[in-house]
C-alpha cells in the first residue's frame, strides 16, 4: 500500500517535471509564431518600431488580410496549390510505397541500383538541377506551364525520400511471415501488397503525407521554374510580389503566411490520428 503510494507520488512528480519541460519548450518553439500573430494586425510602421507591442500605435488593423489576398490573387493560387499538393502527395505515396516494397523484398540488381541512386540523389543541391531541368523540359520538350508537369516533377523529386522512409518502415515493421501466410493462402504479390502490406504502413503513410504535402504546399523554387503563367501560380509564387530587394511589406507577408499555413495545420491535425494509431494493433486485426 505504502509502496504503491510512493510510486504514485513519484509518478506525479515525474509527470509534473515532464509537463513543465514540455511547456517551456513549447513556449520557445511557438514564440516566433506568436510574433507573427501579433504583428499581422499592425501596419508596417508599428511592426518595425515595436514588434512586441500587442497593439501598434496606429491601432489594430485587419487590413493586411484583404490587401494580401487581393494582390496575390489568393483564391486562384489557393486552388492551384490545392490541386498540385493533393495530386502530388497521393501519387508520391502510392508510387514510393510500391517501389520500396519491391526493393526491400528482393535483392535484384535493379533494386539495389535504384535505391542507391535515390539515396544519393537526396543530397543533390537543387541548384544543380534547375537550369538543366528547365532547358530539357522547357527548351527541348516545351512542356512547362502545365500543372501536370509540376506534379510529375514534384513526385520525381520527392520519391527518393518517400521510398527511403517506406523502405525503413517495411524493413523493420512488416513481418515477412504475414506476407508468406498470404502467399500460402493463394494471394499474388500484388494482392498481398495491397491487402497486407499497404494497410500496415499507415503511420508511415501519414508521416510521409504530411512531410510531402508541406513541402509541396510551401515549395517556391520548382513551381517558379515550371509555372510561368499567372493563372497557374501557387501560393508561394503568388506571395513573392510582397518581397523586394529594397522593400518588403512585412504585414502583407505575414498575412499571406498565416493564410497559407492553415490548410497544412488542419491536414496535420487530421493525419496525426494515423501516425498515433500504431502498427501492431493493425497487424493483429488484419
Amino acid at each position, binding site marked *: 500500500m505504502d509502496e504503491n503510494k510512493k510510486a504514485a507520488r513519484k509518478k506525479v512528480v515525474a509527470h509534473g517535471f515532464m509537463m513543465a519541460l514540455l511547456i517551456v519548450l513549447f513556449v520557445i518553439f511557438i514564440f516566433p509564431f506568436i510574433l507573427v500573430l501579433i504583428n499581422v494586425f499592425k501596419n508596417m510602421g508599428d511592426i518595425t518600431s515595436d514588434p512586441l507591442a500587442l497593439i501598434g500605435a496606429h491601432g489594430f488593423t485587419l487590413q493586411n488580410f484583404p490587401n494580401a489576398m487581393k494582390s496575390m490573387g489568393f483564391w486562384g493560387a489557393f486552388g492551384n496549390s490545392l490541386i498540385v499538393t493533393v495530386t502530388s502527395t497521393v501519387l508520391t505515396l502510392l508510387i514510393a510505397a510500391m517501389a520500396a516494397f519491391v526493393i526491400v523484398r528482393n535483392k535484384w540488381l535493379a533494386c539495389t541500383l535504384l535505391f542507391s541512386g535515390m539515396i544519393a540523389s537526396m543530397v543533390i543541391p537543387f541548384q544543380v538541377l534547375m537550369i538543366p531541368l528547365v532547358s530539357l523540359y522547357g527548351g527541348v520538350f516545351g*512542356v512547362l506551364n*502545365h500543372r501536370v508537369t509540376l506534379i510529375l516533377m514534384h513526385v520525381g523529386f520527392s520519391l527518393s525520400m518517400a521510398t527511403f522512409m517506406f523502405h525503413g518502415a517495411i524493413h523493420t515493421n512488416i513481418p515477412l511471415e504475414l506476407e508468406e501466410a498470404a502467399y500460402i493462402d493463394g494471394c499474388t504479390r500484388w494482392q498481398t501488397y495491397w491487402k497486407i502490406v499497404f494497410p500496415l504502413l499507415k503511420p508511415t503513410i501519414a508521416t510521409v503525407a504530411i512531410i510531402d504535402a508541406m513541402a509541396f504546399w510551401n515549395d517556391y523554387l520548382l513551381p517558379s521554374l515550371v509555372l510561368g503563367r499567372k493563372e497557374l501560380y501557387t501560393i508561394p509564387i503568388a506571395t513573392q510580389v510582397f*518581397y523586394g530587394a529594397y522593400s518588403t511589406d512585412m504585414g502583407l507577408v505575414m498575412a499571406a503566411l498565416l493564410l497559407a499555413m492553415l490548410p497544412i495545420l488542419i491536414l496535420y491535425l487530421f493525419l496525426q490520428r494515423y501516425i498515433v494509431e500504431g502498427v501492431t494493433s493493425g497487424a493483429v486485426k488484419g
Partner: protein
Amino acid sequence: MKKKVSLAMAAAMAASVMTVSAPVMAEENVAITIFNSKMEIQTVLESKAAEYSAEKGVDVQVYYSNDTVAAHMGTRYASNDPYTLSMVDAKDIYSLGPDHAIDLSDQDWVKDTVHAIEVDGKVLGFPVCVEARGIIYNKDAIEATTGKEFVPTDYATLDAFKGLLDELVAGGMTTPVGIMKEDWSLAGHFLPEIYEEQEDVDAFVATLYDGTADLANNAKFNAKMDTFDVLMANNYAKDYAIAAERNVTEQMLAEGQIAFMFGGNWDWSVINQYDYSENMGMMPVPQNTEDGTNTKLVGGGSKYFFIDSSDNTSDAQRQAAKDFLNWLVYDEAGQSFVVNDCALVPAFSNNTLEVSDPLGQSVKAYSDAGNLIPNYNYLPDDHYSRCGASFQKYLAGQIDRAGFASEVEAYWASTTPVEH
C-alpha cells in the same frame, strides 16, 4: 536504355499535355509579357497594364520575381520562355543584350534621353528611370534640433558637415546618422563612388586591375573614408553597426530620430511606409575636396527594358512592345504613369512633369542642372559582395583603413577584367 526512357518520358509528358486544357487566348489580340524587377511599382504597373490592355487591344501581363535578375533571366531563357519586354539592371544589358535583345536605334525616344545603353553601336537598353546616390537628410528633424534653417548646399565640405553634426549632438540628437550595413549599400553604392569620382574612371579602374593603384594614398579614397569615419562616429548603432536593421534605420530617418543616411532615391519606397517627415531630400556626400564632386550626386539611368530577339517572340509582339515603350515616353498617360503612379524620376527630357517624392525631386534637380556624376556600370559581378565583406569588417572595426584598402586592392588584382 536512355532512348527508351526518354520515349517513355515524352509519352508521359505528352499525355499530360493533352489532359490539361491550355488556357485559351483570343488569337486576334497580340499578347505580350513584361518582366518587372522593380518590386515597389509592381502593383501600379499591373493595374496600369490592365487599363492599357483594355484601351489598346493588346494583352499585357506583368510578372515579377524575387530571384536575382540574372538567375531569373537564366531560367527563362533556358526554358525557351522569355518575356517580350524584360526590365533588368544596366550590367544585365551588357551581358544579355548582345545575344537576346533587338536593336532599338531607330526608335524616336533615343534622341530624348542620354541614359539609353548602347552596345557595339546598337541601342539595346531603354532607361526606365533616373536614380542617384547621396546623403538622405531629414530637414524637419535637423531644423527642430538646431533651431536654424537647414540649407544642404552649406554643408558640402566635411568640416562644415561635422560642425552641423556637433550642433545636432549638442541639441540633443546624440546619434544623428544611420548606416546601412548591407553589402550592396557599402560596396555596391558607397565604395564605387571612390572610382566614379576619379578624374579618369577607366584609367583608374585599369590600375586597380593591374595592381598599380595605391588606394591608401589616393586622395579620393581618403576623402571619402574620412567622411565615412565621421558617419561611423555618429552612427546610432555604433556598438552593433553590423547588425543594424535596414527597416529600423529607415524608420528612424523617416520619423526624425536620426537626420542623415547614405542611400538613394529608391529608399523612398521604404521611407514612405512610415510616418515620414514632410521635408526630406538628398544632398551630395560631404567631402573635403576641391574637385567639385561634393556638389554632385552620383547616378544616372537605372533599370533598363530590352525587347527579346529570339524566335519565341513574334514581330507583332515586338511591335507591341515598342509601342508600349513609346507610350511611356510620349503619351501623356504614360508620362504621368512614370512620374505620378510609380514615383520615378523620368529618364527622358521631354517628360517635364513634376516628380512627386522629395528624394526624387532632389535627384531631378541635380540631374536637370547637369550635376550627376555618371554610374560606373562595369564593376565585376562579385565586387559588391567580396568588397562588401571587407567594408563590413571596416564598419565593425575589425580592420583599419590601410587593411581595408589592401583588401580591396587584393580583390581587384585577383579578378578578371570586365570587357566593355
